């Protein structure tokens, strides 16, 4: 599937071939529309890119009323990535999407700053569990929670999220980073810090999936730096049940198809009936996805 923030809401990229996708995750969606951060918003780094888009999006009502009806026509499950600054925000966004035809599920982006607690929901197991629980109560839809990796104890947070009722976990969001424009002597991004994505973070994301996959029973969706079929297979071997492609969509609009075809070819070569079986270590409990 395609990762949040790298495919918009599926309308902006006529160059991209949707039929190769297993699912699409939308851009992060908030209660009210947001214009996003001032430029410069992105910077390239070695095998990676930093972004500080600032959750530019038209707001959940627009998404629910204008986009969702169009998704109904598509042959592709659309998962809406949601964000907020308070538990109430998240719950409200989830409620307005709940049961909406065209919306196949929700991905909770918990790397947003918690206005009250002063830190991100995703860096604190208690906060992460609270927001998961509240959204769980607000919607019947499949609920995936996306981990932010900028923490000491990812496994503890993943366990708390599982206990709070998430159906699956996506791992991971971007790594906090920075770039400085030496000639102009200022941070390259107007926002100062940004999130690092791309091949540079693949080994880090893979470690996150490896550790979380053996600690929880719900399925893990691997994301972070996947560019090739081999990258995706690394995540499946590490215990992911599926993968999301992010930054690669910018570089290779045909990435989803190439990755999918490569995985199929690998499965055929290896005589594997079911790619769900290839994880190197047994999961705590068998799951079907």
């Amino acid at each position, binding site marked *: 599937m395609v990762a949040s923030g790298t495919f918009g809401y599926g309308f902006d990229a006529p160059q991209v071939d949707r039929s190769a996708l297993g699912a699409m995750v939308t851009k992060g969606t908030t209660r009210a529309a947001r214009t996003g951060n001032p430029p*410069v918003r992105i910077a390239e780094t*070695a*095998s990676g890119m930093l972004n500080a888009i600032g959750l530019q999006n038209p707001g959940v009502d627009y998404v629910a009323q204008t986009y969702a009806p169009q998704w109904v026509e598509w042959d592709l499950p659309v998962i809406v990535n949601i964000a907020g600054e308070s538990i109430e925000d998240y719950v409200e966004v989830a409620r307005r999407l709940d049961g909406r035809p065209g919306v196949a599920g929700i991905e909770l982006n918990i790397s947003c700053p918690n206005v009250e607690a002063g830190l991100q929901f995703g860096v604190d197991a208690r906060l992460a569990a609270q927001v998961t629980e509240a959204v769980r109560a607000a919607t019947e839809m499949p609920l995936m929670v996306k981990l932010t990796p900028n923490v000491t104890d990812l496994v503890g947070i993943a366990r708390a999220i599982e206990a709070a009722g998430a159906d699956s976990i996506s791992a991971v969001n971007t790594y906090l980073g920075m770039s400085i424009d030496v000639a102009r002597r200022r941070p390259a991004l107007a926002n100062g810090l940004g999130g690092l994505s791309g091949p540079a973070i693949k080994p880090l994301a893979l470690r996150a999936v490896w550790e979380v996959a053996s600690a929880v029973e719900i399925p893990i969706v691997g994301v972070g730096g996947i560019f090739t079929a081999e990258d995706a297979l690394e995540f499946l071997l590490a215990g992911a049940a599926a993968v999301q492609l992010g930054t690669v969509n*910018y570089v290779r609009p045909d990435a989803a198809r190439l990755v999918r075809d490569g995985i199929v070819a690998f499965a055929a070569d290896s005589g594997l009936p079911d790619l769900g079986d290839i994880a190197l270590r047994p999961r705590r409990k068998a799951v079907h996805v």
Partner: protein
Amino acid sequence: MTVATLRRATVLERSAPMRTAVELVLHEPEAAVAAKPGQFFQLGVDAQHTLLRRPYSIAWANPDLGRIGFIFSVVGAGSAWLGAREAGQPVELLGPLGNGFATPGPDRTAVCIAGGLGIAAFVGLVKGRDRLGRRTVVLLGARSSDWLLPADRLRGAEVRVATDDGSAGHTGRVTALLPRALHDDVELFMCGPNEMLLAVVRSCRELGFPLERVQVALETPMGCGIGTCLGCALPARGGGYLLACQDGPCVTADRLDWDRMDGI
């Protein structure tokens, strides 16, 4: 829904139109037909420690021969890699992308003001199929004569030059040439560094030249080039942002909030 227009072009020629730039001539017949002045391609680069494609304006296109030209300076790893491509080697193109220039009426004079490599966006405009308007004037500014595209590449246009160091033409900023050029029948086109764009806008305001008649080819770092990353946002008049890759790169200057453009 159209599938990605990823194209594999072949380098036909590499040359140096001026000491500070490379011109790559690529062969890709479909792209040469599709490409309009002001549009751009995302060029694939394969240099160590790079990641993203690099956006380059179409300098010119010859649909009959299936050729497209790009003119650029080597400023970093990506352009260095492109600038080292030799005849016969492949270059991957994504595009053409974005909105090109809107052609002015036949009764109009097109004035193109360019700073440095900004001139690349105008080469195809001043002659041939894509020639603009009744008469074309090019105001060309650069640090020094080393950075000036030779005037014979702009045949069909009246070329006026300014250099910071006075090594050619007027000594000083190219915007000094504007007042004499901005007549009533003029449609202004601009491309160049942000500071130049800001200076042109200031001049237009002072001279009372309406920004609706100024078309700008925007350049800003781009992630995708196709509207999905929201990385190429620039401040829009009235609040919020427009996307250089999707709403532009060519827009009329009144659509931007130039106060918030300062310092980008």
